[in-house]
């Protein structure tokens, strides 16, 4: 009896709510109200990949700044970020917590390829936006089969195409040697490169070698590549092996035109361990403004970032590119929420995310964010930079789309 009464009361209250929102033309899914928008995120704050935790912390800090400035259309952002330790089964647990317990409106910037793979199906079944995932795998831009998932950073295939494009323009008669890690990441890069070269370009590849993550070194592969007579080297390796390859090439006196994937263009983790002078001339794709690059220091965009850092993240490492990544990702999120206006349904979030065209302050000039109903790859442009022995020097035009 009592339960029935409660039910009736709840139904009445619900009806009242519906009619009210109907008048105001506001539409909400769970996670959004007149006062706040709940956004979820999963990051590795512990475990082997905890360096990426800086991304989640930066997003949190940026949303605090937005809230301090009055929020988005009068609503505060409640950012719930959880730790999965880069363990896919924990990622699923956390995703379920966000969807079923916290009932967030959308998730943004969940980090990692295996971790996002674990929740890919769940999020799409649940019709929960898995927006701007922080991984470069190409599979995230598949709106036909996975309409609730969208990538963010340039995908591996897109980046490879930039190298191919540059190569065709600068050295049309090259003999190409390729070393790639024998897994999905390596194959993703390789596919983009071969597609980018086109039918004629494919014949330019004289040697393709692989290594396993479990291998101790890539020395023998480097010797073999040199022996093949290749004068262009596409280096698809993770940081440890990238440093080895650069060092070995210098030791055996092989000086090809050297393309290094974005995954391994960290100054601290690759270029310096490989020997700063060994890497002179290497080309790699960039899309964010590196905070250590002095040419940005006096621009208003950079100063704005510095003010943000001093105010909301005092003590953070200003050389950490992950912070710039998180900052940019949070700005993209804010744009989507702004565009969604008072129609804060999950469906509209995805519709707005698939309808953006903007420039963000810490992206390189000319690199933009652009999506469409069938284009779920937000950032697809990049610029090549050349290692001069001390730092990466941007050069040439903006490549991509």
């Amino acid at each position, binding site marked *: 009896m009592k339960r029935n009464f409660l039910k009736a009361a709840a139904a009445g209250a619900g009806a009242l709510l519906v009619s009210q929102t109907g008048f105001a033309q506001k539409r909400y899914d769970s996670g959004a109200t007149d006062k706040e928008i709940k956004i979820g995120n999963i990051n590795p704050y512990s475990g082997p990949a905890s360096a990426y935790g800086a991304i989640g912390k930066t997003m949190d800090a940026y949303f605090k700044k937005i809230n301090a400035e009055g929020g988005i259309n009068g609503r505060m952002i409640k950012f719930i970020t959880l730790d999965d330790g880069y363990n896919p*089964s924990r990622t699923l647990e956390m995703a379920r917590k966000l969807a079923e317990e916290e009932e967030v409106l959308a998730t943004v910037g969940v980090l990692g390829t*295996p971790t996002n793979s674990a929740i890919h199906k769940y999020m799409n079944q649940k019709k929960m936006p898995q927006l701007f995932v922080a991984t470069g795998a190409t599979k995230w831009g598949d709106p036909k089969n996975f309409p609730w998932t969208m990538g963010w950073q340039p995908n591996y295939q897109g980046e490879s195409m930039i190298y191919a494009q540059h190569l065709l323009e600068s050295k049309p008669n090259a003999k190409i040697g390729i070393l790639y890690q024998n897994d999905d990441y390596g194959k993703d890069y390789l596919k983009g490169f071969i597609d980018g070269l086109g039918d004629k370009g494919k014949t330019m590849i004289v040697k393709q070698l692989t290594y396993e993550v479990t291998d101790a070194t890539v020395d023998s592969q480097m010797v073999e590549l040199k022996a093949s007579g290749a004068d262009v080297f596409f280096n698809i390796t993770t940081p440890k092996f990238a440093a080895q390859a650069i060092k070995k090439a210098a030791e055996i006196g092989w000086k090809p035109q050297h393309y290094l994937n974005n995954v391994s263009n960290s100054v601290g983790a690759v270029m310096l361990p490989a020997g700063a002078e060994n890497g002179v001339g290497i080309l790699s794709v960039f899309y964010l403004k590196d905070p250590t690059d002095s040419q940005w220091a006096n621009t208003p965009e950079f100063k704005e970032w510095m003010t943000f850092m001093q105010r909301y993240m005092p003590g953070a490492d200003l050389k950490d590119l992950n912070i710039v990544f998180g900052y940019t990702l949070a700005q993209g999120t804010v744009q989507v929420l702004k565009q969604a206006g008072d129609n804060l349904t999950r469906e509209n979030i995805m519709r707005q995310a698939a309808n953006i065209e903007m420039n963000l302050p810490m992206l390189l000039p000319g690199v933009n964010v652009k999506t469409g109903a069938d284009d779920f790859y937000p950032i697809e442009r990049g610029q090549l930079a050349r290692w001069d022995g001390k730092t990466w020097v941007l050069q040439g035009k903006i490549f991509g789309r």
Partner: protein
Amino acid sequence: MNDIANRKWVWIGGLVLLAALCVLPFLVKNFRVFQFNMVMIYAIAVLGLNILTGYNGQISLGHGAFYAIGAYIAAILMDRAGIPYWSTLPVAALACFVFGYLMGFPALRLGGHYLALATFALALAVPQMLKYKAIEGWTGGVQGIVLSKPEPPFEFSFLGQPLSSDRWLYFYILFVTLIMFLIAWRLLRGRVGRALVAIRDHPIAASAMGINLPVYKSLAFGVSAAFTGVAGALSAAAVAFVSPDSFTSFLSITFLVGVVVGGLASIPGAIAGAIFIQFVPNFADEISKSAPWAIYGIFLILLMYLMPEGTAGLFRRIWARLRPSSSGTKTAETAPAISTAAPQSVGGSQS
């Protein structure tokens, strides 16, 4: 007289507990049910490791590997062969038993921390081997295998909550957990259990009494691996995804933490250990984003200070204090033998 009355109460208590466990999933959200499922799965894995480490005194830092093997066998059977999820358990158990039994042979010659290192190597190697390209067609390489969650075979609802696939899995896992605990209880309460404890406490004396050390030690390894493999197979169904990154070496350490927190050589302790490894990391993450593992570590250190014999030891002590008269003789006989022996064996193996 007293004993019969006691037994009656144990039965009633057990049935009430079982009824509570059956109602529980309908009182909470699906997400919580999923967490309870993981607790039960971890409890089986921790129990498996406890058979080896707690009862037999062999330290293993490699049980994450058996968990991974169990999970992958279940996933491959479900994904490639289309075999229903429940029939993957015996296969996973058997395969892990054989694998663990074989691993038990080198363990015969390695003691203490050497064994810990050898098993740790296993934990490090298995995730790498899962990525090996020759078997990539089966394992899915680094991408792993995405599975479909088992659907409940019939529609049912209770307290206004439908029997969702999580709730169905809950009952399935609860059933398996009960069976696994029963097996462990039957095994460890009898001759085999006593033989294992004897080997742990004094191997020379044990062999003088006619216990076949190599057979028992490698069997303990095999059974322990089989338990953990079953847990792995259940996790494949519950999480509906396996990948090499799900089974890093840290998982093995987590299991050992579960054993120590629950209490060495304690069957119910496995449940406390599982609750700890499931919920404390989440709790630590809520306290601090900067150093969740430091918080986790502080919890662990505090626990070791407050409950040096694990949760089981604490309960035993409280129990002994509450009921000094009736079952006092019973606890006095068994409890100290276990609780003092456990640290001794660890200390002994290190010297």
